[in-house]
Each structure stands twice: as structure tokens, then as C-alpha cells.
């Protein structure tokens, strides 16, 4: 199946990476997500079960552009960007799930999987500030899909401590 896809599709690198259990490097992430600087908020996928769950990393540095103003002399990663980082990992989980389903069905052509637009934030809590030097571990778990909307449970951790958790709805 992979061989066949490689010979037909011009850019199959991300599809090949999906079978790698050790995760996705940034190049593969950028083939799946359309996000770019300064809004690409996941550096690496460390664990991926397409369509089911994923875990990603976001390393926060003082050079993040938004920290210049949030806040001057007192940099804290904005909560909404933690939400978007979580949504991006969820987007990778869902998109690779669509691709995996297609691959299982023997489909090697067609539109790439596109679920990923944030449609609702039913619940979100922020427990601790995320600071420069922190490595944010982004966990997502698919809960339910219905009619092109996807409910996802999300959690952010720093050094094992939960800094944010909640639920997001992404739409296709």
C-alpha cells in the first residue's frame, strides 16, 4: 500500500511518517498542518494513534513574538495560544485519522483530510502559567465524531503537572 502511494502521489512523506510509532518531526507536521510562523504551535508529535489520540511538544522560549506584549517584563504564554496549540495537535490526530482510514480502504488519491477548524470550546481551565523555558506537553484524545464535528478531550502538562485541561470541538 505504501509503495503504491509513493509511486502515485508526488509528496507522500507525511503519509510514510504516519506508520512511524516514534512520532512526527516538524517537517512532517508542516505537511499535515497549514499553520506557519508565528502560529505553528507544535514542535513535535511524540505519540500518535491516528484518529484516536496524540501527544505533542511545544517548547516555549522568550523569543516567542507574542511574549513581547504578553506581558512586557513578565512573559506568560497566552491561554488562547495554549488552546490553539492543543487544537493543532488535535488537528494532526484527526487529519491523520482520515488518511489512515482512506489508506485502509485502499484509497490513495482524493483530497487530504481537512478536519481542524476550531468550532467550539465547551470547557477549558488554566491551572498554572506557562513560562519561557517550559516544555508544554499537549495531550489530545478523540471522544466523539458526529456530522463533521469532532469532540476532543485535551490536556496540557509541564513537568508532569497539568497546566490546562478541557474540551474542544473541531469541525471538518
Amino acid at each position, binding site marked *: 500500500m505504501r509503495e503504491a502511494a509513493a509511486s502515485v502521489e508526488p509528496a507522500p512523506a507525511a503519509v510514510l511518517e504516519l506508520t512511524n510509532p516514534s512520532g512526527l518531526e516538524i517537517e512532517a507536521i508542516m505537511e499535515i498542518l497549514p499553520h506557519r510562523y508565528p502560529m505553528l504551535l507544535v514542535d513535535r508529535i511524540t505519540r500518535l494513534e491516528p484518529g484516536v489520540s496524540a501527544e505533542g511538544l511545544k517548547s516555549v522560549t522568550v523569543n516567542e513574538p507574542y511574549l513581547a506584549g504578553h506581558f512586557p517584563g513578565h512573559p506568560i504564554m497566552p491561554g488562547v495560544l495554549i488552546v490553539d496549540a492543543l487544537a493543532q495537535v488535535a488537528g494532526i490526530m484527526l487529519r491523520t485519522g482520515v488518511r489512515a482510514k482512506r489508506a485502509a480502504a485502499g484509497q490513495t488519491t482524493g483530497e487530504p483530510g481537512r478536519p481542524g477548524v476550531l*468550532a*467550539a470550546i*465547551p470547557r477549558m481551565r488554566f491551572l498554572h502559567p506557562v513560562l519561557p523555558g517550559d516544555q508544554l506537553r499537549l495531550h489530545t484524545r478523540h*471522544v*466523539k*465524531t*458526529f*456530522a*463533521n*464535528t*469532532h*469532540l476532543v478531550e485535551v490536556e496540557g502538562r509541564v513537568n508532569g503537572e497539568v497546566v490546562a485541561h478541557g474540551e474542544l*470541538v473541531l*469541525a471538518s
Partner: protein
Amino acid sequence: MPVGVTQSVDIESVKMGLKSLIVERLKLEVEPASIEDGAPLFSAAGEAGAEAGTGLALDSVEALEIVVGIEEKWGVVIEDDSVANEFYSIDTLSGLVKRLLEAPVAEAAASA
């Protein structure tokens, strides 16, 4: 075919449960009893606002919320898409819930 134990479900209590579930989970400012059994609950895709006044014109995010609410309230599993055409009115939704409740073994086996 469903075999073994089935329980009879009162369709009227399911309808009332659905109406209060929808109003509570979606924080609607209407009386549950004011929702008509046959009125369309959702706005058609791409026609937001169309036919406003008759139904609640709920969207797909709210449909997902109702799915999760039904699963929690009645302990059933709603498979994606297989029942999408039953997401139309209180009448059709209550029929779906009643069917899932009365044949849990058969539904579970069919979806496995």
C-alpha cells in the same frame, strides 16, 4: 434481530427527556414544552437562518452536544452518520432513542 430481554420504553417520557436535555445542554431560553414534536431542530447545511421561526435552527456543534447528552443520559451509543437522518425533529430523535434502548444488544452487535 433482537433476541432476549427487551424493555418497553415510553415514547412520551423520551420526548420530554429530549426536550429538557436540549434546553439544558444548549442553554436555550425557551420552555422545553414549547418545542414542537414535529418541528425541524436543525438548520440545513449552508442555509443558516432559513425557515427560522418554526424550528430551533441548531447547528452541527449543537448536534454533537445533543449526541453526547443522549449517550450520557440513556447510556446508549450513537454511531456517526448511520442515524444522521434521524436528527430531524423530536419525533424522529425520540424514535431513535427508543429503538436504541429497546435493542441494546442487537445495536451493539451490529456496530461491532
